[in-house]
């Protein structure tokens, strides 16, 4: 790998690049999914390739290829420089990367059990056991299970002198129970929505989920939802479970603080942000709200040794006691403010240009136990597990649906409600937060989309439950 990396950098410099970096990656992914007692998918993927990013004539160029040979490395590095020179034809200022970054080292995701050493038979068996447990509940239409194990080997080198090797391991699994009837489709997911809960961890991560033990419960809930009353429209108190809090943080904070988005660099696709630089220091939420970007969180999907610019993993407060204090940055965007990058740049694969992506965007725990939050609530709703999500292109107006809700009446959970939705405006919503739980856990989002061409990123969110007042629910 070192020879290939050095060749790419040398060629780029020989052709006039003032900066270049190269990522060589190999990835191995195992995916298993089951449905109604059958294996729906059994897939083993391998991919390898490299991407060269260069600055020439003050502008960016990037080229990537799946063919890892010296002639191809040379060709692609030359193409990257040519593209940079073409970019310079329509530049308005030279790119400034700020202070040089020189890092050398290795990182490997700490795991107890390498997930790729667990047999496929055992993985299939686990999902089919959970499947059978779900289908033991009468009235269930679909029982689904999924798991994914992945290993990515990354080599990064730059003309500044960085040379880094990382091995990122991810493991994830989940089950979904779906009931169909009377024009309704109701589902319950465990441990998280989007089909599975995933982290940078080994097979121990899946063992801890107790999928089989939780399977009957979610199947019962899915069936019960068919005949549950519709969530009525109201302005009320909501207590939101940790998994939905993770997505709330993701959409209304994580994306809003991506500095490239703030600076207009994502305007053509996902939009911009209401958190413009003049709003640093504004009140984002109540004093209960503390949010950090932490690329060192154990088992977080946004945990690594160095980002894809070679900047070390960092911890950055984003919201402190409700005050908006910082962004997620890259070398180029941070330099505009005279600051160094806080290490949040990643690419989906060797094939794509690295962009600012969330690492682990964590709502720090509070002091409440969930049961005490509920007991302290006269009237409201407890919302659990995301089902739908939408937010405007400046990250203000959002609307979420969850799979299930329970009424809270006089401090106790009451009847189940179906099709719950809630909506709000980001700072008003976070400003109404008056309790944050302490049963905190890391959650994973495996489908975060950004960029053109689109890239899907795995990001983490640590969260506990939290309570919000005067929230509009029951939109449909």
């Amino acid at each position: 790998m070192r020879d290939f990396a050095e060749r790419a950098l040398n060629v780029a410099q020989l052709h006039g690049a003032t900066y270049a970096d190269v990522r060589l990656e190999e990835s191995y992914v195992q995916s298993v999914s089951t449905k109604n007692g059958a294996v729906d998918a059994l897939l083993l993927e391998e991919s390898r390739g490299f991407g060269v990013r260069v600055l020439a004539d003050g502008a960016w160029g990037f080229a990537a290829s799946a063919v890892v040979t010296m002639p191809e490395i040379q060709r692609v590095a030359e193409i990257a420089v040519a593209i940079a020179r073409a970019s310079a034809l329509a530049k308005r200022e030279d790119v400034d990367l700020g202070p040089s970054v020189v890092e050398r080292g290795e990182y490997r995701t700490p795991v107890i059990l390498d997930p790729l050493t667990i047999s496929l038979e055992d993985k299939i068996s686990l999902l089919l056991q959970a499947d059978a447990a779900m289908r033991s509940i009468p009235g269930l239409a679909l029982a689904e299970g999924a798991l994914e194990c992945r290993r990515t080997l990354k080599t990064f080198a730059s003309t500044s002198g960085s040379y880094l090797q990382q091995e990122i391991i991810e493991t994830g699994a989940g089950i979904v129970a779906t009931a169909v009837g009377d024009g309704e489709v109701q589902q319950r997911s465990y441990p998280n929505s989007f089909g599975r809960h995933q982290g940078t961890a080994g097979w121990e991560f899946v063992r801890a989920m107790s999928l089989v033990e939780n399977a009957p419960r979610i199947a019962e809930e899915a069936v019960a939802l068919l005949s549950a009353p519709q969530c009525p429209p109201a302005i009320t108190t909501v207590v939101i479970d940790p998994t939905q809090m993770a997505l709330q943080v993701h959409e209304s904070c994580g994306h809003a603080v991506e500095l490239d988005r703030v600076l207009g660099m994502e305007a053509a696709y996902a939009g911009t942000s209401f958190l413009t630089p003049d709003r640093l220091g504004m009140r984002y939420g109540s004093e209960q709200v503390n949010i950090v970007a932490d690329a060192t969180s154990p088992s977080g999907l946004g945990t690594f040794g160095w980002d894809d610019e070679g900047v070390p993993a960092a911890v950055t407060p984003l919201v402190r006691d409700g005050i908006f204090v910082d962004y997620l940055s890259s070398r180029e965007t941070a330099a505009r403010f005279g600051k160094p990058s806080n290490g949040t740049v990643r690419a989906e694969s060797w094939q794509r240009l690295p962009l600012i992506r969330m690492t682990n965007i964590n709502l720090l725990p509070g002091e409440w136990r969930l049961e005490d939050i509920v007991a302290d609530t006269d009237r409201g709703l407890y919302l659990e597990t995301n089902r739908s999500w939408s937010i405007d292109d400046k990250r203000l107006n959002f609307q979420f649906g969850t799979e299930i809700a329970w009424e809270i009446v006089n401090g106790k959970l009451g009847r189940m409600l179906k099709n719950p939705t809630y909506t709000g405006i980001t700072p008003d919503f976070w400003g109404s937060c008056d309790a944050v739980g302490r049963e905190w856990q890391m959650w994973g989002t495996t489908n975060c989309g950004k960029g053109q061409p689109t890239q899907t990123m795995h990001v983490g969110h640590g969260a506990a439950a939290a309570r919000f007042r005067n929230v509009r629910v029951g939109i449909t």
Partner: protein
Amino acid sequence: MLGKERILELGAQILGISTADETEALVISDETALTRFANSAIHQNVFEVGVEVRVRAVLGGRIGVATTNSIDERSVRDVVDRAVTCARLAPATPDFHGLPEPQPIPQVETFSQTTASYTPERRAADVKGICEAALAEDLNASGAWSNSEIEVGVTNSRGISAYNLRSHASLKTVVMAANSSGYAERTAVDASQIDVAGAGQEAIDKALRSRNPVPVEPGDYTVVLEPYAVGTMLDYFASVGLGALALQEGRSFMNGHLGDRLLGTNITMWDDGLDPRGMPVPFDFEGVPKQRVMFFDRGAAIGVVYDSFTAGREGKRSTGHGLPAPNTWGPVPLNIFLAEGDASKEDLLRDIERGLWVSRFHYVNVVHPTQAILTGMTRDGTFLIEHGQLTRPVRNLRFTQSVLDALSHVEAIGRDAIMLQDEWGGTRVPALRIGRFTFSSATDF
């Protein structure tokens, strides 16, 4: 690019190595270049060369799939071994009736050398034109201008041997003022068919006209949806309920309603991968030729799309809508058409006392699948309609609306459909005037 001979040779090599009862080789090779701009300058500019070999092995109804992106002999043997190994481990899949049989592949024009030869310098010049036009109006241009060349080859042990070379050019631009924005999109097989300057001007005009928007109350409005908005709405509508898997699992709004009139009698919607007015593609990812599938004929629910698995369950033939294996999503429509009407812009606006003109939707998602309720935001130019005229730009609104209900209240259909790009296909739709459309909340801009 690998070329037809090499791709089909790879397929034959895989079939020759495989010890499975049935084997399918899907080879996709592509070169994609994209020039991205923001703040009226190029800020990202990329080129990628990719290849993927995907092998599906079937052993007595047990199915395994493996992929690689290396095509040396050792890697090809390895991917076949992995697929066969997986197949040995999996339990048999009920309802699996084998890989599809070969059928004649229709000839469609899918490639333009102009697109394949488009250089970074030429894209940069095009982008510079848009940026300079925006700057001249004190506006800020962003967007993405891409061209790609894609080869798809499918070979299977039942005799399918299909190859297609296609090209794709796509321009999307958002132009912004301090408190407004405008959008334009153009897609074609042949990049020279795209009026880059015209697209830039469309976005500039919309950004200028939507400056200083005023707030309006959410509620029910008569709306005119531009094709951009209609296309997004129909893409989500189709993904929720117009595939056979959703129907077979009872999750579709079509369940129990095939043959019923579900939409207005002025709504006719279908999928046609061979229509040259769209983004034509001759066959799907299983090598099955694309069939025209009618979804709604004058409002009556007629059918959904199938792949070989869902078709086999019902003793039918695939309609050519299979995705790469293993496909847990089911068959998906990728070339959606909505029949045009004869309404001009003036016709669409006529007699609307108070309504809204919507340019496009943003971040749409499904709230209720069987009622086809979607939610999303307006974006890039929303205007108040008063007494049949566009009067003032308004701040963006969130809609929460059943598409079934919306398409049952279409009062007029535009006469000029446009083609919008999707990942692997296109959606061709006109503007719609809808009598009742629900906006559930608003935002601050």
